[in-house]
């Protein structure tokens, strides 16, 4: 009997490159991303991300909405972490109008952004587990995420799209009951974070699938303009909270977790470590917060901005989120541009997927942690 298994392939066998369409409807693209993959065997020879399947024209709509109405639009870019979106628009507008935000509002903003970062990273933690093949972390992460959403719901009535941070301050003040509930959550959450590390971070299968995969060098990360945990995973210390402190970030102490090699695991670990830092920031804010106003005085109902330009940027859950506003003196922004971190982070995919195995595509895509609402706006 001839050895068919190890025989050389017949002469007339045809080998060809194959085109695979990943998305726009695919459970692991986290939305409606389409990637055109050309593969040769198991290796990817070309990857062309195709975005725009959620392009809603927000930048155009802002040109006919009032400044207060624009805050509503901002919620729906990065819908997993909407508070930093609210905040960055309000910061840019406040720069334009020269509003002085009261100190208590600054602390509340910081608390909300950090709590939202926890909620967002928990979602990443859960879905990245699914991407790799572990379903259980998803259920654990969503259990805790619901508790964070309950806190948001109690304060502003919404679970995802908050519209809580307003121009000049915040919508309502936080009361003692809320603070007590939030502290209770933090106490509950700290041991859970340790549980996650045992559940997923140091799981040998998970480590094997991520630690040597999708390595992005420092140079690549810089030239592609990555930001957030993707940039910090490669070991570059760039965090808008330290670069130009906004809200109350100059009054609290925190570390910026950095990765070493820039692999998928490093990016993942940066996010998990950031959750520890967020817990610490929120606790410090509770210690330092004093009673006072939560809204600036003299914020107009229908504001007419002075002529000028402003740029504000914050560290959103996905990276450096910036807003460039131009005002012609009218009731609505003359031009609003969003520096969307997901959009810029996603561009690296066309380079980082080439030469990788098909099985690693979702591991790399998931570790970049995009939100399509922000990619396409």
């Amino acid at each position, binding site marked *: 009997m001839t050895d068919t298994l190890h025989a050389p392939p017949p002469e007339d066998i045809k080998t060809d490159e194959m085109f695979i369409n990943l998305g726009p409807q695919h459970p692991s693209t986290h939305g409606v991303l389409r990637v055109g993959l050309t593969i040769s065997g198991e290796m990817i020879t070309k990857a062309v991300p195709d*975005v*725009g399947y959620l*392009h809603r*024209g927000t*930048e*155009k*709509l802002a*040109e*006919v909405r009032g400044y207060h109405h624009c805050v509503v639009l901002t919620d729906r870019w990065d819908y997993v972490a909407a508070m930093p979106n609210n905040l960055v628009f309000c910061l840019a507008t406040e*720069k*334009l109008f020269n509003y002085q935000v009261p100190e208590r509002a600054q602390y509340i903003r910081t608390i909300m952004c950090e709590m939202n970062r926890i909620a967002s990273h928990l979602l990443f933690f859960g879905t990245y587990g699914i991407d790799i093949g572990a379903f259980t972390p998803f259920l654990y992460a969503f259990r805790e995420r619901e508790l964070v959403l309950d806190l948001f719901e109690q304060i502003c009535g919404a679970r995802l799209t908050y519209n809580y941070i307003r121009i000049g301050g915040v919508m309502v003040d936080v009361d003692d009951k809320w603070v007590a509930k939030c502290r209770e959550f933090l106490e509950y959450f700290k041991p859970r974070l340790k549980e996650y590390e045992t559940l997923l971070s140091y799981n040998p299968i998970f480590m094997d699938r991520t630690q040597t995969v999708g390595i992005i060098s420092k140079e690549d990360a*810089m*030239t*592609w*303009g990555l930001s957030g945990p993707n940039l910090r995973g490669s070991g*570059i*210390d*760039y965090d808008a909270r330290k*670069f*130009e402190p906004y809200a109350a970030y100059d009054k609290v102490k925190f570390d910026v977790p950095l990765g070493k090699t820039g692999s998928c695991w490093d990016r993942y670990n940066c996010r998990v470590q950031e959750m520890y830092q967020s817990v610490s920031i929120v606790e410090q804010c509770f210690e330092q917060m004093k009673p006072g106003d939560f809204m600036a005085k003299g914020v107009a109902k229908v504001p007419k901005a002075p*002529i*000028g*330009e*402003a*740029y504000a*940027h914050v560290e959103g859950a996905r990276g*450096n989120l*910036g807003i*460039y506003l*131009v005002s*012609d*003196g*009218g*009731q*609505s922004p*003359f*031009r609003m*541009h969003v*520096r969307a971190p997901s*959009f*810029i982070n*996603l*561009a*690296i995919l066309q*380079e980082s997927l080439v030469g990788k195995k098909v099985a690693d595509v979702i591991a790399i895509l998931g570790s970049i942690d995009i939100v399509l609402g922000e990619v*396409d*706006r």
Partner: protein
Amino acid sequence: MTQDELWAQLSAAAPKAQKIDAGVKGYLTVKLAGEDLVKAVTWLKQHGFDYLDMITAVDYSSPVEVKGFVFDPNPNHFLPEGATPQIEAPTKTPGFTYRDAMEVVYCLSSLKDRLKVFIKVEVPRAAASVQSLVALFKAADWQEREVFDLLGVRFEGHPNLSKILTPEFIQGHPLRKDYVHVPDKFD
């Protein structure tokens, strides 16, 4: 390095550059001629500004044209025909210089010095084109495509300047102020 030191060095390197005092609040804003752009950005990149934050463009022609939006003439069916004006057309405000030009805006960061610098290049609307920065920063790739798609600025030397966000059948560049929406099969 502070903003003033940066401006002193930059103006020596690119003599034609102008500093705009009424630029982006709190940041150094520099206006460059189109042909100096690549030279100045290369200089900046060598002097610590090795992170491209954003590329965008602004159309200064006029307030936005309402026909660029899609709307049902009377969305509130409980009101008589035509009773609710939907969106008010923004009017020209005195004091702002509307002109037949676009500005391409670049933002570069120096992570070491914690500085950001804004660079503006003014181009005519009819033949809007500037040099591409893809050779210097790969981050420029998609952002230039976005600006091309939404505002119609051509980037000379870009390897793949094509639509990125809007579908094929949307005609024109939606973020231009005079964009008029042509109803398509979904309206």
